[in-house]
């Protein structure tokens, strides 16, 4: 029997502050406009992306290609609605773009594209690519003696991919302490529980044994995320893995831990009413 992490229990019960609710309204507004979107994977990510973009990344929305900026890659590209909400809110592009999500002339597709969306560092969507690209970026920083850091956000289902573990071995080999892997551990992938599809436990031990300094936390706890992310590198000479225990669909009771909300098409009137109750009018 797998021990349930106290962080996972905390993720289920913790409440969300107004900024987290606001960001959820942005995400769900895009889903309402487009009549589609990966709801669950975006809602589990929001606090991870929020703390990164609000408090951690050294970035300038007016100079998104600044060579000294920190790099962040959303390797689980299907969580893009959370990223788009943060990028729009931080001024990388107008908030009005969110209404065009997946539209024929939109810059915002169902997976984020480099060169299309200001602030997006790499096109993702096919899973298992982001950590390798991140290793390349982090290694380049080392070789060029630059101080930027690289953060890669991975899904738990995503780390089924063998390429992630190739990248992990490589990051450890190079001692990339300027690289941080953040795992959105919501324990539910497209079909169902990760424990059913392809068990990941003992997950922290896996990352540790691959040479990472590992931290675990409640991925909806903004304060905990700030504390840990501001401490990186946790161990000099080692890449960091932060296992963020989250809840798929967090903040929307109907969607929480419900695989049917992995991807959602048109929202019904009753679903829209339930969303308003949960996150406020939008």
């Amino acid at each position: 029997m797998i021990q349930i992490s106290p962080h996972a229990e905390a993720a289920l019960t913790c409440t969300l502050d107004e900024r987290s609710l606001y960001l959820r309204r942005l995400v769900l507004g895009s889903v309402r406009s487009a009549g589609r979107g990966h709801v669950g994977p975006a809602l589990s990510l929001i606090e991870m992306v929020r703390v990164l973009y609000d408090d951690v990344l050294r970035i300038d929305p007016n100079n998104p290609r600044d060579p000294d900026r920190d790099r962040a890659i959303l390797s689980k590209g299907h969580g893009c609605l959370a990223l788009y909400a943060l990028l729009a809110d931080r001024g990388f592009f107008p908030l009005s773009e969110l209404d065009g999500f997946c539209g024929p002339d939109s810059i915002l597709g169902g997976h984020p594209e480099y060169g299309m969306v200001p602030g997006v560092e790499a096109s993702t969507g096919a899973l298992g690519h982001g950590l390798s690209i991140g290793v390349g970026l982090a290694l380049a920083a080392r070789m060029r003696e630059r101080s930027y850091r690289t953060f890669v956000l991975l899904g738990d289902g995503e780390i089924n991919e063998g390429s992630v573990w190739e990248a992990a071995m490589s990051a450890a080999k190079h001692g990339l302490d300027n690289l941080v892997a953040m795992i959105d551990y919501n324990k539910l992938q497209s079909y169902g529980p990760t424990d059913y599809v392809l068990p990941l436990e003992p997950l922290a031990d896996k990352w540790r044994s691959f040479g990472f300094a590992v931290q675990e936390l409640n991925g909806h706890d903004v304060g905990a995320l700030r504390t840990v992310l501001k401490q990186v590198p946790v161990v000099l000479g080692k890449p960091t893995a932060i296992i963020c225990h989250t809840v798929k669909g967090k903040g929307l009771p109907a969607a929480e831990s419900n695989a049917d909300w992995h991807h959602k098409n048109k929202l019904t009137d009753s679903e829209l009413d339930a969303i308003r109750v949960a996150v406020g009018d939008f």
Partner: protein
Amino acid sequence: MRNTAMNMVHKLATRDERVLYIGSDPGAGTLRAMSKEFPKRHLIEGISEAHIIGMSAGLAMEGFVPYVNTIATFLTRRCYEQVAVDLCLHNLPVRLIANGGGLVYAPLGPTHQAIEDIAIMRALPNMTVVCPCDADEAARLMEKTLDWTGPIYIRLGKGGDAIVSKAEHGFEIGKAILMRPPGDVLMVTTGIMLQRAIAAADLLAAQGIRAGILHMHTVKPFDAEALLQAVRGVKLVATLEEHVPSGGLGSAVAETLIDKLGSGLPAMLRLSLPDRFMHNYGSQDSLLKKHGLSAAAIATSIERAHAASHAPSPQLHST
């Protein structure tokens, strides 16, 4: 050809600090001199091709020009999605140096024989596909790779292939080289089939058939202009490739002729490997011979097709 290409990576690295060598698990001592001179730019990253391509993409995003090197099948089949998404979609200047294009690894069996690599690499938007014919041409190609936009797939031959390319022809990626002016027949080649085409052309000449040779070292972007120029007045176009019949040089030639000429097409003969995995070993030469790609067999096939192209068209008789 392989040693030349490898040494060129070292030479380019001496000139340009952006150049990296990234091998998976190459033979002991590969680019040892470079590893001593530039230890930080000589990276051996393990049997993890999918990761290596992604990592190279990240390095290229930061201004490096990685030359990634392993066996052709592992650089194409194993990590195709990474090549498509990380390299081609982002249009990054990563160079894939593929050892053992075609049947070079004949004795090692079908896992090591790159018989469809041109097709699958050519299918990717933004990819450039180059198949040099000999070591001299490989060196000229490598000189041009430093500042080429986007990814390049470089299909290397065995090494020790007869030198048939000529310095006076120069070398530009995407520019075919007319090795012999066409007569009734034009052979279009890529890679080491050029050597066989030259020998076949000599055999055909002895039979009174003048066969030209257009060396299409770059299969993508395809030099349609050179092909259209060369096929003027030609009755038979024969393509020669060490590759399955679908998607390679023969396909590119046929597509171009159909798209650009529409009607009045010359007869066409596509000489290639069959559409199946090889279950014989031996050598590259013995397998090519078995599949009708020796110089003599090429000449015979062309002679027959040439005769057929001259035969009167079948007439419909009414009574």
